[in-house]
């Protein structure tokens, strides 16, 4: 690797690539046969049929070309680069171009990966490429801001501790009023309980009602639970930025808090990337085995209904509903049956969306796309596929177990004027809850 003609950043990217590669990524980088089978799996391609630069293999080749030049053993790319279109990187401008591809033209949804006959997992090495760029400070502005907030303030929306605690207090009061029970408060930092409930900071900032809904369900189930004053953000921008150090640090905060407070289980509110990061990737990034059990609140709520700990009346949710699978839940964590099971228990009119589960299309807000405003026009255009999917269901409301998808879908619905509402399971379950009113107890 000659250094003289390369910028310092390029030099670092190429050096670090060798350290980031693992066997799976190496396999994915060498095994593509350019068959094009993945092309139509990608929502960007389907929405831009005349632009081949959106094809997953084309995008993957922007990374593959320098991989072939430097890390592909005896490949012709090392000796006759033009033969396999291999080319090294030299300038910062090239890194900027790469940034627009890996952040702006792919949501890491993994739909192409599950459609590749060779088992090439492009989304995984696209994330690696993001991480390489982030390591030299090249990233969309939004990614830089959010990452900074998550490093420094401890959550990705920069919510201050006092604001978070104030919101919990406010929601406690609302709940007490609604239930007429002064004991119906949100416990904070209570030790040795069963459940530590962790959330997406978006809930504090824009959707505090979802916290109150969850609290109402825990109350109805008579759960021993609490919310921590720190380590409450189960989202993780490391998943989107490809920064495993950030990913590990954020996940560790949650795990350590749970251990410190002696809880039995960490329950994560409905958030696809949060669930994937904390439940499925965090232990690997943090290089730690987590002693505490973890589950999605979808599973918790479903268990409550099945065990008879809460009673629900599905006639209270009167509209027609469809379900959108978050890519992170469905294609990276296998969470797709339980939300449907729960949904069918709390609504009467459920209409399946096609394709679904691991074959579902991205809401277009995945991979951190909602924080990268410079790519909004492309994102909204690529949402055409999702919009058509939604429209075909004829449902009034789309339900999703992901806060990111709530935002992504809301944006699309507005853009394509679909007039569909977006909600989450927690809201529907809380609405369907049958709680026998207790005799008002006096506040002690």
């Amino acid at each position, binding site marked *: 690797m000659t250094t003289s003609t390369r910028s310092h950043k390029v030099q670092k990217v190429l050096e670090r690539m060798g350290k980031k590669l693992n066997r799976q990524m190496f396999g994915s980088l060498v095994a593509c046969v350019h068959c094009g089978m993945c092309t139509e799996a990608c929502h960007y391609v389907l929405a831009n049929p005349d632009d081949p630069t959106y094809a997953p293999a084309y995008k993957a080749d922007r990374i593959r070309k320098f991989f072939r030049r430097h890390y592909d053993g*005896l490949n012709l790319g090392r000796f006759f680069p033009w033969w396999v279109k291999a080319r090294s990187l030299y300038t910062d401008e090239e890194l900027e171009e790469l940034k627009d591809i890996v952040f702006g033209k792919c949501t890491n949804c993994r739909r192409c990966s599950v459609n590749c006959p060779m088992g090439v997992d492009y989304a995984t090495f696209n994330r690696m490429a993001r991480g390489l760029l982030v390591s030299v400070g090249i990233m969309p502005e939004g990614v830089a801001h959010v990452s900074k907030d998550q490093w420094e303030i401890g959550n990705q929306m920069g919510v201050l501790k006092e604001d978070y605690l104030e919101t919990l207090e406010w929601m406690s009061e609302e709940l007490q009023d609604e239930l007429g029970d002064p004991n119906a408060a949100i416990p904070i930092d209570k030790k040795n309980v069963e459940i530590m409930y962790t959330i997406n900071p978006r809930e504090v900032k824009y959707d505090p009602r979802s916290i109150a809904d969850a609290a109402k369900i825990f109350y109805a189930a008579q759960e021993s639970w609490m919310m921590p004053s720190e380590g409450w953000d189960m989202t993780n921008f490391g998943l989107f930025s490809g920064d495993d150090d950030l990913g590990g640090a954020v996940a560790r905060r949650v795990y350590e808090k749970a251990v410190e407070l002696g809880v039995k289980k960490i329950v994560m509110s409905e958030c696809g990337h949060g669930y994937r990061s904390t439940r499925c990737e965090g232990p690997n990034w943090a290089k730690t085995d987590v002693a505490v059990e973890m589950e999605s609140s979808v599973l918790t709520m479903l268990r409550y209904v099945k065990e008879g700990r809460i009673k629900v009346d599905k006639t209270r949710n009167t509209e027609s509903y469809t379900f959108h699978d978050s890519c992170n839940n469905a294609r990276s964590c296998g969470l797709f049956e339980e939300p449907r099971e729960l949904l069918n228990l709390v609504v009467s009119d459920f209409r399946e969306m096609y394709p679904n589960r*691991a074959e579902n299309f991205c809401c277009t807000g995945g991979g951190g796309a909602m924080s990268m405003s410079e790519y909004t026009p492309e994102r909204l255009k690529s949402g055409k596929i999702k919009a058509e999917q939604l429209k075909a269901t004829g449902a009034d409301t789309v339900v999703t177990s992901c806060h990111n998808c709530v935002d992504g879908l809301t944006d699309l619905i507005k853009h394509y004027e679909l007039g569909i509402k977006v909600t989450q399971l927690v809201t529907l379950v809380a609405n369907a809850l049958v709680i026998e009113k207790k005799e008002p107890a006096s506040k002690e």
Partner: protein
Amino acid sequence: MEMSPLLHFVEHPLQLGCKVFMLSIYAYRLIHLFSYMAGGERQAPTGPPGTTRAKGVVYSWANIVMPWAMESTRKKPFYYIQFVIFHLGMVAVIGLTFIIPYGPGLLNSVGLVWVLQVMMAAACAVGLYRLYYRISSKHMRAISTPDDYFSLSLLIVLFLVGVLAAPNNIVQGEGALLTFFFMTAFFLVYVPFSKIMHYLYYPFTRYYFGKTMGYRGIYPVRRGYK
């Protein structure tokens, strides 16, 4: 009639030498692949009960004979048929490179010769169509390299020559056999550096992908049918 020394050379020592060369490069490639650490999963498994790493791997490997398993093959049965025909042609060509030198007696069966010829001719036709598709589709052009065009062209010609060489009839001249074996010799040397060596990695990429997807409950794929 005895074969010429040249034909003997290309059928035997040359093939053997090239095979040894190919295997050495393959060995190097696998050592290189395994020099990278495999990414592991520390978390507890996720997904529906009954999904496991092992089931994921088996499902992933079996994917090749389950065109319904992926949307990409399910929606494009014509592509899947092309894939099958093309690779059966490869089996015929590879088989022929062993039958002619080591079991020529088998080719006394006109039936077997016909089967091999049909397999290779069909693969040749599919190859020509794939080449046309690669050139005519802008999406395919965008992802194609000179190696993609050359490898495909090489195989198309090899299938064609294979059809001519299959009867193994030196009475009518050695041209077809010499061309076939010179081509296979070149093929053996070229393949380890080209896209054609994807089959070397295939079991591993599918193994690791299946392992991950099985552990996380995505494989075997479940979908709500319409």
